[in-house]
């Protein structure tokens, strides 16, 4: 079939090597042109993300393009370790590789969804620059389909993968829509900011930042469009908050269980959610036992992330099986198409459609 992939990823190369091989969208047109000329490719697509740069090429049958493709990489950046970091796949293995990448099975975070968008952009860019053809058109569209299928049919993308997104997911389990919920930040450090940004993407209501040094709080408040106040405003601000993110460097808890009890009375029992990412902890752990109070510290959140990841990994086997089937089917289709026969590609749960190379583009 003469489909070849050459590339490197986070599995084979460290970041400092990868970043020299990243190709941005403006550079794409020129890079693709070079690829076609240098490698003599009939069709080419370039996938470049922060975690991988890969070249997908359909060349002449019978010719080996591996050497020219490796040379292409060498032209981009000269480094002694480069060649050993490159891997290649051909034919059916190449199809399988692309499907695995699209499904998120080759990502740093198993099942992540960003890669799907990245594959789509890479394909669209290549299409705009005219470097795609009948085989790559069907291949990439099929890859996007497979990527979606694997995510719906297995639980490979289930469960948040970062502490920040877990914190937000839990907040949504408690409060439902976070629209107009009040967020309180204790401490103005980086961790707080990251978690706060996660929350803000949900259109929360007022955000208040308390810090020992008010200037830092003010700076963060301006960035996040919120309000700042000194740390001793805690007693006034805590009752008004629904979500509290704690990251001060206090040595002992600044929010005692007793304070939380009082606050809950003022709040009339409305749920209160603490994300305590400080070490040592800012909130007395026994506060979690108070009715309608939910206290999650960094260990709890990390544990949930780990559980989610473990669950995702447990899905890998199913996902691989699915991909095996789908890539095998695709390979048969391509082989048949190249030989002039028509074959069928299953679309979803329905009956197989009569595939035609030109139709799917």
């Amino acid at each position, binding site marked *: 079939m003469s489909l070849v992939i050459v590339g490197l990823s986070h599995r084979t190369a460290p970041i400092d090597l990868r970043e020299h091989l990243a190709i941005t969208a403006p550079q794409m047109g020129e890079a693709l042109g070079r690829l076609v000329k240098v490698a003599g490719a009939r069709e080419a697509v370039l996938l470049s993300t922060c975690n991988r740069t890969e070249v997908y090429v359909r060349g002449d049958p019978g010719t080996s393009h591996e050497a020219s493709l490796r040379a292409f990489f060498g032209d981009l950046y000269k480094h002694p370790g480069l060649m050993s970091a490159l891997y290649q796949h051909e034919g059916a293995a190449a199809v399988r590789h692309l499907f695995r990448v699209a499904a998120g099975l080759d990502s740093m975070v198993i099942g992540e969804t960003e890669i799907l968008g990245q594959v789509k952009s890479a394909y669209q860019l290549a299409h705009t620059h005219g470097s795609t053809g009948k085989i790559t058109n069907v291949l990439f569209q099929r890859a996007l389909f497979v990527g979606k299928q694997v995510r719906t049919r297995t639980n490979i993308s289930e469960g948040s993968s970062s502490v920040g997104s877990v914190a937000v997911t839990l907040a949504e*389990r408690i409060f439902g829509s976070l629209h107009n919920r009040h967020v309180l930040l204790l401490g103005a450090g980086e961790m707080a900011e990251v978690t706060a940004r996660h929350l803000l993407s949900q259109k929360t209501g007022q955000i208040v930042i308390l810090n020992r040094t008010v200037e830092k709080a003010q700076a963060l408040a301006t960035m996040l469009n919120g309000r700042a106040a000194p740390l001793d405003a805690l007693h006034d601000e805590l009752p008004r908050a629904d979500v509290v993110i704690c990251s001060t460097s206090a040595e002992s808890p600044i929010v005692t269980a007793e304070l939380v009890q009082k606050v809950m009375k003022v709040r009339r029992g409305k749920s209160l959610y603490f994300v305590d990412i400080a070490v040592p902890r800012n909130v007395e752990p026994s506060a979690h036992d108070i009715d309608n109070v939910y206290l999650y510290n960094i260990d709890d959140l990390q544990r949930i992330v780990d559980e989610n990841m473990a669950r995702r990994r447990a899905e890998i086997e199913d996902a691989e099986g699915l991909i095996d089937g789908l890539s095998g089917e695709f390979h048969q289709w391509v082989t048949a198409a190249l030989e002039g026969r028509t074959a069928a590609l299953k679309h979803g749960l329905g009956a197989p459609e009569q595939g035609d190379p030109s139709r799917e583009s």
Partner: protein
Amino acid sequence: MEQTFFGAAFTSYSVAMSLFFGYVITRRESLSRVAGYAVWTGVITHIVSLVLRTLAARVVEEHRFYVPWSNWFESFSFFTLVIAITFLIIEWRRGMPILGAFVSPVFFATMTTAVYSPFGTQIPLLAPALQSYWMAIHVPVMFISYAAFALAFAVGLAYLIQERQLKSKHPTSISFRLPPLEDLDQLIYRIIRMAFPILTLGVLLGARWAYDAWGRYWGWDPKETWALITWLIYLIYLHMRLVVGWRGRKTAYLSLLGFGVVLFTYVGVNYLSSLHGFLSNQGR
């Protein structure tokens, strides 16, 4: 003819329950939608069966006030219908498909209780006390409030499950299939807020009926007393929520307890009272 429609209703309710359970397990949205249609079908066939029953019964002079909720079987059958309708209304207003998994066992249970009536399923001979237009007014109003409290109970259960998930710090996929905590809490409150005036109306209508039938508007008959106790429980819930500020777990427990009291007022009390209860005509 009536039995065919009743059987269709029973089947529809059972199918709905299975589909709701299936939705919980497989998370296929289509199942919950079809389950909703099954409930609709059940409600419509059920209403038809009740109409047919009424027409069949009202041929005798003693049955000129007859309504199809005059004995154990009919009462539970009608209660099922009211629960199903109330569920459909709340589903339409709030759209919580998972609610069906909690409510459908309730109306399935009441329907089964009807069918396995210890007193038979024939049209009853109305005792003189029940030969009144109040039967058509007081009982449905009470049942509407009872049905709402049944729903509040179901939502309360969902709340407690979700709360346990989140307190345990190990939320599983169950937590994601259930609605968020605050939404559930708000829903319980709204249901009880809506149902409390209706319950009050039902009790007052009962008093008006008693004034004509038994010579006094309130006699501390066990059924009357337990209706008052039900009223007090939900009064406590509302004061807790609005005045003192209890929310969440404690009020969810109250919604469970409240329904327990409702059940006792509905069924349990009949074993205490000979004046008000089904035993006053052996349910026949």
